[in-house]
Structure formats: C-alpha cells, structure tokens
C-alpha cells in the first residue's frame, strides 16, 4: 500500500509553477528522501500534502485519504516544519502536553518523557523562546514523533543540527525503517544516501527522478574509473578521441580519473588499448556513483 500518492499535483503562483504535475508514489514503511535545489518546490509539495496550501490542479492521497476531501488524515502525521515555530512561553514538557491534548492522546506523560529523552531535551527547564535553533529543531522532532504517527513528514530535519545531533536524528529516522513511513526533504545528499530506501528529485516543480537508491545507481549512465599507469600522458592522448569517454583528468602524474559514458565498452576496450600500447597498469578501480553524482546529473540533464 502507498502512504503517499500524488496525481498530477500542481500548485501555480502568479508567475511560477511551484509544483508542476507531480506524480509521486511513496510506499508504506520506506524512508523517502525528497531532494531538489533551493526553490525547486520541496516545501510547497509538503504544504500541499498537509493541506496548508490548496492544489491548483490534481490531488494526493495520504494513507488512503484524498486531501481534497478530508483533513482527517492529519492526525496520523507527524510534521516537522523547515523552521519550527512554537509557543515560546511554554517549556518543552508543557508544549508537548499541549500537542498531546490536540492529538487526543490519553495519559501522555510516559510518551512525553520518551520523546524528550530521544531528542535529548529531558532536563531542559527553560522556555522554548530561549532555545537555540538546534534545540528548536530537536523540539520539533519531539512533537512530530510524540503521538507515534505512522507517517512522518519532515522538512529539512537535520539542517540546523551540529554533526552529533545530525547523527542522532538520522539514526532515529533510520530506526523507523519498515514500520513507519518517513518523507523528508533535504539538501544534504549524504544524509539521504545514508538512510533512504527511495529518493525523488524535484527541479522547477517537476519530479525528474523517483526510484529506489539501488535502481537509480544501476541506471546511472556516467561511471568513473581510476587508473594508475606508468605513462598516463600517452594513455590520455589515445583516450582523448574515443567516443565512450566523457571526460578525464590526470591525478598526481601517475593516474587518470576517467568518466565514461558506456562502462561495458570501456571495460572491453581499455585493457586492449593498454596491452597494445604496452603500458604498465598499476591500478584499476571502478568508483560507484554517489547520490551527489546522480543528483547533479539528473538536475543538469533536465535543464
């Protein structure tokens, strides 16, 4: 079953298509990274999914409910805004009690303590107004997970955190794998690569890629080879005119970083060239693409 399914979801402003014909499918239980450059439409998508904005066209189904027909699905979602805002006069515990009241939780004390422990705010007594940005981010995560919702929508959950805090939150999100659906937007590609099962890449409001990380890596067209030889200049001179070579650059006068368009052809022809030219091969390494490579390729190819 799908936790989120959008059908031609669009949001137009006067002179901009913030979200344009978005067809997205997020299965239940996966961690889905929603990636895109600044202004791509990530936050607008989230606002549409949460009924904070109205679609110009299309619709979405969240946990089986059509967002145009009801808002009842909202109490099954934990949401963290990009810039979390709270009632500054509350302290953490008081605020979570208020959220528990709104969520209809009965006897929430134990759950509140758990949530505060998870985000490391258990001993924090001061008012939320005096919190740092990172503490507010952790507070935001605490209120999002408080009612133990089946779907979490997190807008840039790690953006304001220090490395240690980021690791803790990523580990927390990762621990939800399999039994909670997490839809989170981020521009930190390494975070997405580390914990996501699936990613979607959005640019100028359009979804340009959406699949599992494994499938995306398999379909990634460019591959990089690191080759160390005794005569790199000679090899570069030969490779220069070959059509399966995308680009190359020397490394410390003894190696070449070679980007190829067609890995299979490269794997067949390169050893032949090396043998024929009697070049001594010291090292051969195929570098797996990372999410950043894929992201950059997807974003630039689309443009």
């Amino acid at each position, binding site marked *: 079953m799908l936790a989120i399914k959008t059908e031609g979801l669009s949001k137009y402003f006067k002179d901009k298509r913030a979200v344009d014909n978005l067809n997205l499918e997020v299965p239940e239980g996966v961690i889905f990274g929603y990636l895109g450059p600044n202004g791509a439409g990530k936050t607008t998508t989230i606002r549409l999914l*949460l009924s*904070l*904005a109205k679609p110009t066209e299309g619709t979405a189904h969240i946990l089986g409910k059509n967002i145009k027909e009801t*808002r009842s699905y*909202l109490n099954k979602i934990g949401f963290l805004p990009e810039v*979390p*805002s*709270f009632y500054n006069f509350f302290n953490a515990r*008081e605020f979570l009690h208020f959220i528990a009241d709104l969520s209809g939780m009965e006897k929430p004390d134990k759950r509140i303590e758990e949530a505060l422990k998870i985000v490391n705010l258990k001993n924090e007594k001061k008012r939320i107004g005096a919190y740092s940005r990172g503490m507010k981010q952790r507070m935001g995560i605490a209120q999002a997970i408080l009612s133990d919702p089946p779907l979490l929508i997190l807008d840039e959950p790690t953006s304001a955190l220090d490395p240690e805090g980021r690791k803790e939150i990523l580990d927390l999100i990762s621990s939800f794998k399999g039994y909670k659906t997490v839809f989170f937007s981020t521009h930190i590609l390494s975070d997405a690569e580390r914990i996501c099962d699936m990613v979607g890449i959005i640019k100028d409001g359009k979804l340009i890629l959406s699949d599992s990380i494994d499938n995306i890596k398999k379909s990634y067209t460019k591959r990089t080879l690191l080759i160390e030889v005794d005569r790199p200049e000679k090899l570069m001179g030969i490779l220069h005119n070959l059509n399966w070579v995308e680009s190359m650059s020397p490394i410390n006068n003894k190696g070449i970083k070679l980007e190829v368009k067609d890995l299979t052809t490269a794997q067949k022809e390169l050893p032949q060239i090396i043998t024929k030219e009697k070049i001594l091969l010291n090292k051969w390494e195929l570098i797996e693409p990372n999410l950043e490579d894929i992201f950059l390729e997807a974003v630039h190819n689309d443009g």
Partner: protein
Amino acid sequence: MMVKLIKKELVEYLKTGKFYILLFVFVFFAILSPITAKFLPEIIKNLSQGISITIPPPTWRDSFVQFSKNLNQIVFIVIVIVFIGSVSEEKNHGTAALVATKGIDRRKWVVSKFLFQFILSVLLLIFSFFLCFYYAKLLFPDTQFYAAISSTVLFLIYLFFVLSLTIFSSSIGKNLLQSAGIFFAIFIVINILNILPKVSPYNPMTLSSIESQWISSKVAWEDAIKPSISSLLLSAILIISGAIYFHNQEL
C-alpha cells in the same frame, strides 16, 4: 477540544502578561472613575486661583458616566491591541500552521479564541463594575445599582460586537498590522454610517451613546432593542465568516 484550546489561551495570557495588562486597565478605571467624579470639581476649584467657576456638585451619575467613557475609549483600545493579533500573529509566526497540521478543526480554533476573549472580558468587566460600584457607593451613598448595571450590560453587548470584529479582522489579516488596518477600516465605516438616520437605530455604535443617556436620565430598554439585536446578528456573521475564511485559508 474547545476546552483544551481555551485552556491554552488562558496559559498564554497568564504567562505572557497579557492577562495582567487587561486586569490592570479594568481595575484602574473602575477605581479611578468614581474618585475622579468626586474630587475633580474640587481640584479644578483649587487650581482656579480666585477665578469664580461654578461647578454643579458631583453625583453618582458622574462616576458611571466616567466609567462608561473610560470603557468605551481606553479599555476599548487596550482590548483591541491585546486581542487583534490572536489569530494573525499565529499565522505570521507559523504556530497556526503547526497546530493546523495536528488535524484540529480550524473553525473551532477561531471560535475557541473568541470564546476565551469574551469570557475573559466579561469576567473582568463584572469585576470592574462591582469595584466601581463599591467605590461609587462609598463616595456617593445614593448610587443606583439598576441604572449602573443596565448601562454596563449595554457595554457588554457592544463589547461582544467589538470582539467579534477583532476576531474577524485577525482571521482575515496575515499579520498584526494588517488585522489592525482591517479592524479600524470597518470600525470607521460603521461610525460614518451612524450619521444616516435610517441606519443609526440599528448601528452597534448607538449602544455606547445610549449607555450615557441611561446613566444621566433613565433606563429605557426599548431604545436598546434594535441596536442590540443588530449587534448580536452582525457579531454572529463576523465570527462565522472569520472562522470559515480561516478554515479555507492557506497557512
């Protein structure tokens, strides 16, 4: 749910000090009005330094005319300033969006804010009335309860209208300034409409002028029926419109 939302409003007003500002204003003018009525003629006489000024002896009516004026001017302004951002500032700060994503009925959220503001204002008004009455009775033993309470009831109806206009403006506006602009624009238009003889008997503004008349001469409920009913109807329209607008608004 409404009770929980009202409870949150109460905590907010206590913790941010807004409650104490309102309490101070209501108490201050409740005490000040009879004292001013009693001693202002003597103060003026003492300041006149030989100039002959004839001032009629003060009565209990002066206390409550003063009280009514203060309610309609200074207390009115303070109430508007304190309440006008109740919805719009939450929109502006993002807390409205956070609460809305918890799946609460947005209409109930607006109505709960209005109810809280009305209940708080009524309690403060009752408290300040009895405080004013107590001091008036001390200074003017012949103070009449019926006329004083009747004029305060009229102010209560007027206050209901003002609060509904406040919540409407706050629901429509995106921030405090915009809401205040909407409020005063409508308020000024309603005041201007009061010069039309056909509109005047139904205008909520008429209530405040009747208040003084009742204190100065006599209570005539028949004069208050039309403006009271139209004020309550207009208030209902404003509250419902504000709640529906906010329900459909993008946050």
